[in-house]
């Protein structure tokens, strides 16, 4: 009667998806390192450090997009504050990276430069333990989880829904941004954290460290995808989409939507937090602008472009939009936001199911054409 959990997880993806996932991991963990380290820089096969950082960064965004899709696409709850959880994870790990600088900062002090600048003499209490990787890894998970739990509990208990919920999340991340902008908050003010030197004792900019971070991000992306596939195919996932479609019916058949929403909300926040922690050492900076409302809105756009309510959609969306962004911001920097706005309008009006929906529609058309031909 009880199918073991491992088997259930295995069956949550079909053969094709497992093969694609395997190919992706082989590419990220074998091909990319070989092409980065093993080829000459002028070779046509060489993958530059820039490309690795860019793809690594976008994989972090893809993680955030999956997290957003779980809550929005499957749960029907649009968060416009997911940048907050990403930033919290990033800041938590950034504390560790700041401590790893040691005495190599401009002031050569035992405490991070910005604290010297504030005339602080020692590490404040909330920084204690931040030199321990284990403790910080725990914070990366716990801080977003706790913030999400407390906020989510009160919001969902008060049955705040739809656009009201979206606006409150937007306000939440904005308030957090203002808080982190203050120097006295103790997180580097508007400069945030940067100039990292080492992670776990290894030089942070060395090609090997980059590749390890890149590989870890790829692994975590794959793991998150498998976990999310299992989650949405479980009965929990069916209850979640049922809440999205007819919440009152769910209540009247005896489920308490509060705990379902809260669970997926916290899971989503934790995925964002870990993504943020993987992002910061690769990009080399974290500052309060990550919490700006525009950033969180952009996350929703990735998901909308890719196709919400599917798991591959958000990943595609994150890649397409961000690759476009890095091209635009180099070639036509002043037009990027116009393009983003246009993209959102076009997707909302013409492609409600995003690129994945478009692909499915084209396939169906092809199939029916073949059907009539035969």
């Amino acid at each position, binding site marked *: *009667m*009880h*199918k073991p*959990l491992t088997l*259930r997880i295995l069956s949550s993806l079909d053969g094709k998806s497992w093969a694609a996932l395997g190919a992706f991991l082989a590419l990220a963990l074998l091909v990319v390192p070989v092409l980065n380290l093993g080829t000459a820089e002028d070779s046509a096969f060489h993958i530059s450090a820039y490309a690795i950082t860019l793809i690594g960064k976008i994989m972090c965004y893809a993680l955030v997009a999956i997290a957003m899709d779980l809550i929005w696409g499957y749960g029907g709850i649009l968060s416009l504050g997911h940048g907050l959880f990403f930033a919290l994870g990033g800041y938590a790990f950034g504390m560790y990276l700041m401590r790893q600088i040691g005495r190599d900062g401009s002031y050569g002090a035992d405490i991070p430069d910005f604290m010297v600048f504030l005339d602080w003499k020692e590490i404040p209490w909330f920084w204690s333990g931040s030199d321990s990787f284990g403790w910080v890894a725990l914070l990366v998970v716990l801080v977003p989880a706790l913030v999400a739990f407390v906020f989510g509990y009160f919001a969902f208990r008060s049955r705040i829904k739809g656009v009201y919920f979206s606006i409150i999340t937007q306000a939440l991340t904005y308030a957090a941004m203002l808080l982190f902008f203050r120097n006295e908050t103790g997180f580097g003010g508007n400069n945030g954290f940067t100039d990292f030197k080492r992670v776990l004792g290894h030089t942070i900019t060395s090609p090997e460290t980059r590749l390890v971070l890149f590989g870890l991000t790829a692994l975590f992306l794959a793991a998150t995808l498998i976990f999310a596939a299992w*989650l949405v195919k*479980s*009965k*929990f996932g*069916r*209850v979640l*989409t*049922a809440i999205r*479609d*007819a919440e*009152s*019916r*769910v*209540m*009247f*058949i*005896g*489920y*308490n939507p509060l*705990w*379902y929403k809260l*669970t997926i909300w916290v899971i989503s926040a934790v995925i964002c937090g870990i993504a943020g922690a993987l992002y910061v050492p690769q990009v080399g900076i974290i500052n309060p602008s990550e919490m700006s409302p525009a950033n969180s809105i952009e996350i929703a756009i990735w998901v909308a472009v890719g196709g919400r309510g599917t798991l591959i959609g958000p990943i595609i969306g994150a890649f397409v939009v961000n690759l476009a962004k890095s091209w635009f911001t180099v070639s036509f920097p002043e037009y990027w936001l116009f393009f983003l706005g246009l993209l959102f309008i076009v997707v909302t009006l013409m492609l409600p199911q995003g690129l994945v929906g478009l692909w499915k529609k084209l396939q169906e058309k092809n199939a029916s054409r073949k059907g009539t031909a035969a």
Partner: protein
Amino acid sequence: MILENTLDDRPEGSDGADQMGHLVTGELDLSHGVALYLEDITVSFDGFKALNNLNLAINAGELRCIIGPNGAGKTTMMDVITGKTRPDSGKAFFGQSIDLTRLTEPEIAHVGIGRKFQKPTIFEQHTVFENLELAMKTDKRVWKSLMAWLAGDERDRIAETLRLIRLDKEADRQAGLLSHGQKQWLEIGMLLMQEPKLLLLDEPVAGMTDDETMRTAELFVSLAGKHSLVVVEHDMAFVEKLGGLVTVLHEGSVLAEGDLATVQNDQRVIEVYLGR
């Protein structure tokens, strides 16, 4: 066959556990024969009294029809029973011991009250089978749902209900694609999967063909005895077919009560329906 099974061998509206004499607070106690008891319920919205000192008692195993013109308070009454609306004053008890005014919607569903909405409310994106699966009586907490895996007997129960509501051929179809009448039946099926003691049915045959309406009446009659049913309906042919007592609501309180013929000949009821 199943229709017949639900009828027989039920001691008058009483549950096995109650006969054993166990009376745990929070468990349904039908020992006095009353399933639902509303006393002096008043609900007002911005000064308008949707319910005005409403009194109503439904016996265990009874099939009761509630009729009344629009705005008489029928839906508000169901909202009060299911915890969606809190009364300003009055008592609402399920059996002897369960105070409905203190419970939340999911808790009320758990103690055994199932509700069918006026507009069929099903999970349109899910298959018919999944709709019934989600409704099935079981531990509905998050952790259990994460680990849930349908057992053989649970599949059998779903299959049994599918036959009862005549949707066994549509099991894997997306529920949103069903006809209106089929959606109504699916919602009734979902209610039955919850194994409720009391079923509240708000206009269950709206949009059904005559044939479907008559079959629904047969189903409800067969369910009475094992379950208590409260049916809100405008279709008098359907009400007649159901038999049983009829309660007429008007302006938030009970205007008349009796069998359909008596009620239909009541002068006040005629006035209310024909207007003054």
